[in-house]
């Protein structure tokens, strides 16, 4: 029945919406936060590496390599967070796009969003 199809699609859209609006952004936030703390570790370490020049220069031989690895890890975490966020936004856009063209599914999506506080 058309009504049933609308309800089924509405539920699928809501799951898509939930993944895009809640789950992926929540994990992305963890990644952004992880990247932030890696950056803070870098700032702290920069000071910790400082020493008199006779011990291998003002920050020593290992600091540059450590900072490079730190930067690589920070980029990995940032890129992962961004991919999660952008994919989440795409899923929300998808749910809304389908909902706009199927009124029954759109109503069901809106009902589930309200019921589950998914805004």
């Amino acid at each position: 029945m058309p009504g049933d199809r609308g309800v089924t699609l509405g539920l699928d859209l809501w799951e898509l919406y939930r993944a895009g609006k809640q789950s992926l952004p929540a994990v992305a936030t963890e990644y952004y936060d992880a990247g932030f703390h890696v950056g803070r570790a870098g700032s702290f370490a920069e000071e910790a590496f400082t020493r008199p020049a006779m011990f291998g220069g003002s920050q020593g031989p290992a600091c540059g390599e450590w900072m490079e690895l730190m930067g690589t890890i920070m980029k990995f975490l940032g890129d992962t967070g961004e991919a999660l966020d952008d994919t989440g936004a795409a899923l929300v856009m998808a749910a809304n796009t389908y909902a706009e063209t199927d009124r029954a599914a759109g109503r069901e999506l809106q009902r589930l969003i309200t019921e589950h506080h998914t805004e």
Partner: protein
Amino acid sequence: MGFENLMQTAAAIRSKAIEIGKNEIQESDEIPKEWVEAWRADVERKANAVAGKFQPFTELPDPAKFNGAIAELQRVMGKLSSGQDTSDPISRNGRVYPANVAMTKMDSVKGDVQGWSGRAAQEFITKFLTPFPAVMHNQFLLVAALKAALEAEQAMWKASREDIASIAEATLKYLESMRGCSKNQAVIVFTVIASICAVLTSSGGALPIAITAIGAVASAGADIVGLESAPKTQIDGMYVVMVLASMEKAINQLVEKIMYTENRIKSAVANISDQIHSAQSSSNPDQHSFCARRPSLADASRGSIRHDLGYTG
């Protein structure tokens, strides 16, 4: 005594060296007065230089200053912990990192998009969601390695402080014993060489994809201990100038040992970066061991989204 009183010990060395040096040789028929004066002037000059030899060590990095950065990385490991293999794989100062519950939301995402059959949706599932736990665990291991390098630095500076203090103390003790029958000949052990092994375990366990890279850090510590024992030197000499020369030699050796140890840490970290780059260039372009590939779904537009997702109902 100890590192905190390094410059006081250096001052005591100077005083004791001048005091003993004054009476080391006396004017006699064989030793003219000018020789004695020249000898004493030489002792005084070398004794006055003692403080300058130790002074740079007072500005060595403070091991405690690494605590802030280490704590930040421990937080990151907590963020990236999946709940499996979550004990620190490298550091002996390690601990268990309980699973980050927020990350379990990724499990539900797979179920939420399962019914969508479009190319981009399927790619998102197979190339992003499925390998995600393995990638996250590799990221956890990378951060563990980054942290272990800082712990190695911290241990190295702690040992360096202990070593320079023991050179100063041994020199003073030897000088103090010079007038007696038995001299306090002191052996200095450069603990700095083995210091980094105290924090790095040998990771023989079966770690996933990142094993070679991470093993590089672990084996840096193991190599040092495995290949050579901590080198030693002695503080001794018949005359004050000889004692001060052996002290200076020990100080110079310590600087070399610090550089050697830090270069081992540098090589281990560089090796990890090399391993990452080689894993990136040799692996499947669709896959990456350390960073989930950006799914094409992330770049979908309103115009393409229906085709990207498809719908099977």
